[in-house]
């Protein structure tokens, strides 16, 4: 079968990866550059091989080759062409191949970069990167192989196997390797089997958000392996100066951005498609992607301290190890269903290998860190409790506490089941009660830290900048909110801090633009453009914080003030929520354009305060396999979203149940997300001036240390 090309490509990639590890380590130990170059080339070749393999899966889906087990599971005749392509990551086996492919592309990017400055690190960066690559390929080859074909066993069961009927099936199973046995072989006497049609993607997965969400998450996960590999290479070679941080700064920022986008897309998809009225449920799989993001955010900030003052070196190593461990654990939780969750895939044989890998990587990384502890001593001490450094340390501590709290809530069921024989889960109330109060000081720090000077800040000077303008502005805002009827203490506290942080950001921008305008005579707009252009890290960072501020507004609005109601309505009957009236008019059958999908839509008229506002059409998708989807109909503004769900209906159209939410300020969340993304791009954009500045800092540091390379 043509797809066997893909199988061969995966096996070759696996071999190339193993060779690369061995060649890189040998080349480093024996100081043979040619071996290191060979290792690099082997790592490079993995990318086109896995590209070929992935294309074979896509090809199989497109031509409807249902003999291939994976195509039969994720595709079908009725599946639209675009979804046949994206089904590559729609099921477990394909998504692990997809992870491996993304990893190989990132690794290729690393291999192709200019290595003149970090020649020493290269062999070990290659080795560590390929260890991770080989692990995921091993999972694909041994346990989750998308190139398995379908067979019918002598007893009539349909099974998937890569190679087919063989006595090895029984042999391997009997020595305890049933996972591999079942992936590779079928019982003796099994015959090839080709279904007439595939099952098709689960309806939940057929929406644009769900198509884009996994790739971005994986890009984020895979992206973090690169700074981790550099950190390990730095520890192994003893070159623990800042080179590894400076080199990987953009990789880390982009990985963090991709992960953030993945989280935002997941939230938007949940809101738009899942139809429970919210966007974040503190589900185990959501938390699994959030935790590396939290420690990644802490890492992004604390490396600035190392670059500026040579402090927190051990802490930064710890953070990148923690982030990488949480990336692997996050993939583990999502793929193995070990914590029961709405998203989890079936339990499979990849669970134990994942745990073993995580354990080995953790022990190895921490061991290396402990071995190099002496090299990582801080160059400076903390001069004052009131300083930019201590603000960053406090912020890092808060992030890590939040990370720990989320981890406790997420992993609690596993431990309670293991130790107390009782499976206890912890729901959203836990997270709201613990994370909520911790966010308050975090937002405060976000606002005020840029005003605190390095080393030692004077309380008087700080008090001046922190209160002169931001004080009255915040106070006015709070009074206005109070007057508008906002009385909830948590909402008021949250809004106070958010307005405070937002005001400082605006003040910083105005100060910067004004200073430029005065000294160069540029117009305000040109001054703003050049200000940002020449200080991308700083002003991009402010923009990111501005995004967080906007998102905070959305979170407070939806968390504290969401309204909900549900009612069964006869034709012509209305329900009320807030100052809206929703009237059911009729049920309609809508053409869906897909052979296996039927769309039934309910036409409702919405009026506000008695005045007609709009007609909305919440609908239900019914699939021939019996599954259903009810995406909401949305009527949105910056003030709020009216969120209408068609709950159920009588087949004669006489009665329909509606669940309606009002989500105040929710669109501030999405707007904030966009600003957040823009800000990160600004901060990450390469800039000639900043490169020169960074280079001169590095040279200065090196010459001070008396080292030539």
């Amino acid at each position, binding site marked *: 079968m043509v797809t066997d090309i893909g199988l061969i490509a995966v096996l070759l990639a696996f071999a190339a990866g193993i060779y690369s590890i061995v060649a890189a380590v040998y080349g480093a130990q024996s100081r043979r550059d040619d071996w290191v170059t060979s290792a690099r080339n082997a790592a490079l070749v993995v990318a086109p091989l896995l590209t070929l393999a992935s294309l074979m899966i896509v090809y199989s889906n497109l031509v409807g080759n249902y*003999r291939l087990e994976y195509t*039969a*599971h994720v595709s079908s005749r009725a599946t639209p062409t675009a979804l046949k392509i994206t089904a590559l990551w729609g099921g*477990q086996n394909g998504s692990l191949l997809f992870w491996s492919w993304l990893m190989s592309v990132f690794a290729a990017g690393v291999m192709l970069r200019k290595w003149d400055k970090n020649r020493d690190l290269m062999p070990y960066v290659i080795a560590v990167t390929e260890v991770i690559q080989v692990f995921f390929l091993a999972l694909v080859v041994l346990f989750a192989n998308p190139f398995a074909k*379908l067979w*019918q066993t002598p007893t009539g069961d*349909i099974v998937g196997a890569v190679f087919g009927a063989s006595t090895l099936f029984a042999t391997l199973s009997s020595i305890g390797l049933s996972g591999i046995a079942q992936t590779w072989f079928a019982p003796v006497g099994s015959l*090839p*089997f*080709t*279904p*007439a*049609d*595939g*099952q098709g993607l*689960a309806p939940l997965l057929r929406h644009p958000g769900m198509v884009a969400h996994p790739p971005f998450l994986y890009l984020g996960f895979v992206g973090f392996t690169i700074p981790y590999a550099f950190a390990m290479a730095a520890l192994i070679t003893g070159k623990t100066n800042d080179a590894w941080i400076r080199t990987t700064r953009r990789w880390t920022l982009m990985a963090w951005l991709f992960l953030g986008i993945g989280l935002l897309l997941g939230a938007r998809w949940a809101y738009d498609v899942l139809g429970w009225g919210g966007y974040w449920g503190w589900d185990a799989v959501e938390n699994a992607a959030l935790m590396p993001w939290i420690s990644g955010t802490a890492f992004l900030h604390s490396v600035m301290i190392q670059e500026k003052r040579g402090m927190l070196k051990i802490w930064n190593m710890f953070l990148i190890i923690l982030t990488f461990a949480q990336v692997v654990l996050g993939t583990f939780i999502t793929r193995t269903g070990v914590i*029961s969750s*709405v998203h*989890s*895939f*079936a339990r*499979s044989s990849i669970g134990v290998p994942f745990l073993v890998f995580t354990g080995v990587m953790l022990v190895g990384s921490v061991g290396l860190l402990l071995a190099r502890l002496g090299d990582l001593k801080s160059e400076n001490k903390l001069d004052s*409790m009131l300083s930019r450094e201590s603000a960053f340390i406090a912020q890092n*501590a808060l992030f890590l*506490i939040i990370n720990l*709290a989320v981890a*406790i*809530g997420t992993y*609690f*069921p596993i431990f309670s089941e293991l130790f107390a024989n*009782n*499976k*206890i*889960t*912890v*729901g*959203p*109330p*836990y997270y709201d*009660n*613990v994370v909520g*109060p*911790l966010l308050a000081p975090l937002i405060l720090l976000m606002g005020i830290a840029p005003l605190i000077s390095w080393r030692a800040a004077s309380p008087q000077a700080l008090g001046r900048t922190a209160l002169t303008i931001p004080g009255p502005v915040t106070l006015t805002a709070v009074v206005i909110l109070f007057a508008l009827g906002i009385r909830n203490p948590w909402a008021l506290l949250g809004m106070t801090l958010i307005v405070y942080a937002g005001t400082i950001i605006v003040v910083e921008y105005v100060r910067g633009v004004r200073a430029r305008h005065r000294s160069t005579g540029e117009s305000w707009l040109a001054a703003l453009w050049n200000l940002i252009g020449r200080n991308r890290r700083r002003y991009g960072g402010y923009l990111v914080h501005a995004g967080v501020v906007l998102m905070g507004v959305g979170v407070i609005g939806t968390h504290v003030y969401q309204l909900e109601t*549900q*009612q*069964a309505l006869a034709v012509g009957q209305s329900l009320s929520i807030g100052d809206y009236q929703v009237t059911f008019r009729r049920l309609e059958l809508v053409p869906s354009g897909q052979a296996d999908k039927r769309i039934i839509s309910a036409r409702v008229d919405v009026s506000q305060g008695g005045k007609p506002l709009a007609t909305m059409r919440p609908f*239900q998708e019914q699939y021939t396999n*019996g*599954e*259903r*989807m*009810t995406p909401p109909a949305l009527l949105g503004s910056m003030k709020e979203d009216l969120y209408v*769900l068609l*709950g*159920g209906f*009588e087949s004669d159209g006489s*009665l*329909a*149940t509606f*669940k309606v939410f009002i989500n105040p300020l929710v669109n501030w969340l999405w707007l904030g997300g966009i600003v957040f993304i823009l800000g990160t791009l600004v901060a990450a954009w390469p800039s000639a001036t900043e490169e020169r500045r960074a280079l001169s800092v590095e040279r200065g540091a090196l010459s001070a240390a008396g080292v030539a390379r």
Partner: protein
Amino acid sequence: MRAKFIIGGVVVAAAVVYLIVSSISSSAQYYLTVKELRGKGQAMAGRNLRVSGYVVGDSIAYTPQASSLSFDIVDTHEELSATTKVDTIKILYTGPKPDLLQHEAQAIAEGKLNPDGTFTANNLLLKCPTRYEDQLPTPTPSAK
């Protein structure tokens, strides 16, 4: 200065620990199977519980006007086709009938056990059917 750091740190740590522990105990839900729930009986009445199982399609009853839903769940997939008596729990729920609620779907119900042995759910989660063990559509064997 070091002393202030340490004392401050301890106070913060204590506050956080208190926050976490109290939140866990107030929002913890026991996750039980159908058999465990029947076995523990009224000892669990009134507590925040989560019970999961496979939906018995025939038992699904829904009154749209009142949005009242009831259905039975069993522990294992095999029990769905069992001919002898198996342990079931009747779940009661007020709200729209979830899309995924059908025979063989896995349901997670959060709520409380009633004195009469039924379970009133205030939240219903339906799991996407696990596809990797399902039978594929009508077989058409082919020679290769």
